[in-house]
């Protein structure tokens, strides 16, 4: 309703917002306070930690310093895992898009004449969220286990050699990431497709556009905003994910991602500066990537 207030009387609204409003500032205070306490403070603390040096007197403790070499060391030590994370996340995003777009299209457009089926299909996409993410991933581990059905079939037709397994491989980790993020890809695309005016598709058809051309020139541009939010919502968490690639779930020493490295450095090695430096690098990397992506795909859709 607030939206209509804005749009219906633009001229009248402008003077109201122009006034330096102390009330607005006052209303913003809790939000600002929250951001300072729970975002800015931890971020600064993380930056300080990432530059700490080992305490020369007490072993295992760290003192504040300007030890920027921490960054060079972690890049050198864990470069491979960082590149792998980006690669896995990109693969997972690609596959999630490949599966998520047709799914969203089916629910949003094909099922539109049948509202009941449409809601049912939506529920099916969301339903996995009712079960813990960890449990679902563990279930896949069971399905892929050596004595499980999938491995049995694959080894009987010779795809899996002796001593080889599905879990702990690139396949299983990318599979897990894709599976876990499909809803994050599907829902934003669905949200754009569900409001797509079908008359536009009819118009494309009337103008002798083949289904492929209509899709490319009408459907795709109109759903671009959804595709973009979907890919961001998938890629960003997937790049930092440490569950799927964990040895406790679908990964192994060969599939370690940067999230696992950060976890080990924080919790096991208690090398806090290294963990903090890695976290900041990951944050910076994603920020730059998203900025470039948003810039290149055009900001209008996001607005």
């Amino acid at each position, binding site marked *: 309703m607030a939206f209509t207030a804005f749009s219906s009387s633009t001229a009248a609204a402008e003077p109201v917002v122009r006034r330096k409003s102390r009330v607005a500032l006052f209303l913003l205070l809790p939000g600002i306070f929250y951001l300072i306490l729970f975002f800015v403070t931890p971020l600064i603390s993380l930056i300080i930690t990432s530059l700490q040096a080992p305490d020369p007197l007490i072993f295992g403790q760290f003192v504040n310093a300007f030890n920027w070499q921490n960054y060079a060391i972690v890049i050198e030590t864990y470069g491979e895992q960082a590149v792998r994370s980006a690669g896995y996340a990109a693969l997972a995003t690609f596959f999630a898009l490949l599966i998520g777009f047709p799914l969203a299209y089916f629910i949003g457009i094909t099922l539109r004449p049948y509202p009941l089926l449409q809601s049912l299909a939506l529920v099916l996409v969301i339903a996995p969220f009712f079960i813990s993410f960890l449990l679902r991933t563990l279930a896949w581990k*069971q399905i892929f286990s050596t004595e499980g059905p999938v491995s049995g079939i694959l080894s009987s037709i010779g795809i899996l050699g002796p001593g080889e397994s599905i879990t702990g491989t690139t396949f299983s980790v990318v599979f897990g990431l894709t599976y876990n993020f499909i809803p994050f890809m599907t829902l934003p695309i669905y949200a754009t497709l569900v409001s797509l005016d079908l008359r536009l598709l009819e118009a494309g058809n009337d103008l002798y556009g083949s289904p492929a051309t209509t899709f490319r020139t009408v459907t795709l541009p109109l759903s671009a905003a959804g595709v973009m939010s979907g890919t961001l919502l998938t890629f960003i968490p997937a790049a930092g994910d440490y569950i799927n690639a964990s040895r406790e779930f679908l990964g192994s020493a060969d599939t370690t991602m940067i999230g696992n490295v950060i976890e080990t450095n924080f919790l096991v090695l208690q090398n806090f500066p290294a963990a903090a430096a890695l976290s900041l690098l990951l944050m910076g990397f994603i920020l730059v990537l998203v900025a470039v992506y948003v810039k290149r795909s055009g900001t209008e859709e996001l607005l």
Partner: protein
Amino acid sequence: MNRPLPEDPMIRSLIAQAKRAQLSRRTMLAGTGAGATALALAACTTGGTELSPADDISADDKTLNWANWPFYIDEDDDGNYPTLLAFQEEFGIDVNYLVTVDDNNSYFATVRDQLALGQDIGADTVCLTDWMVNRWIQLGYTQPLNKDNIPNAANLVASLQNPQFDPGRVHSLPWQGGFAGIAYNVEETAEVRAVSDLWRPDLLGRVGVLSEMRDTIGVIMLENGVDISGDFTADEFNAALDIFRTQVESGQIRNVRGNAYTEDLVNGDTLAAICWSGDITVLNFEAGYEKWKFVLPEGGATLWNDNFLIPIGSPRKTNAETLINYYYQPEVAAEVAAWVNYITPVEGAQEAAIAIDPELAENQLIFPNADTLAQSKIFRGLTAQEENEYQAAFQAILLGA
């Protein structure tokens, strides 16, 4: 901004508003102020003063928080802890039993900031493994035990009375102990008697090992003939580490896991594993027959203990001591041992166990005799430097770095 403004009037007005909010000197100052506040807050996270034990309010506060590992106390079918219920009834202390310790390192990482400030970590007593207890004592994160409140501590077995990390048991008392050895699936694979049998070709990709460095590397070192309780050298440690690395890289070792390694044994991903003694008894019990056999490897097994300690910030020290004293009664210790299947440190518990089940009292994994104990070694305490260096090398293999 030379791009035309969007059509939507709402967005037009928002952008117009944003443009007007120029960065004035006043906002600049306000921003600096907020930044400084945040910086000051961030600086609060690092402490570093002399720690002193918290004031004991046990007399007025009859509650107790006890943090422990999973499946580490007797439990009935309803999920109650019978010995703990009896304790609450007898002493009127309300115990909050927290299953929050899953790994020594990650538990420590969770509570270390509060410990460094001498604050209550939400647990009045916690059971941790020898080497981690060593670290807490060295850092001054524990309160000395008042043995007047724990007369039953006299029941502690002689061999555990003077460990290297706590001579005379001033800060810690053992809860349970156990062996790290080998278990194998008797239906699916031939007998496994030594660590070297784990590297057999028929077990390719079907071997599990523990993510606890001292246990996994410990048994490999013992296989190499190194005394892990003695002054071994870095070379001897690294030789074992090389074997481990080779087996991980070749895929012989399927997985390196914490307590959850039992899942891999159950679903058949692993057919043999380096594992903890008590777990195998529980697995066989759940399977209904002896599907897995636990062996002390020919080279030797590692022996460890988890110990009660009272964190520096706990205000309920006397309550914790009352609890420890209760569990040092042989009858109670026997009841716990019968369920958890680990080695009890309480003298007289074996005699008490005969009353429960004579067969139980004969179980070498719960009441080991001198011969069994001779097959096991305790990993020696590492200096902080060694700890860091070895752990980093071990973790690097797990991360594939």
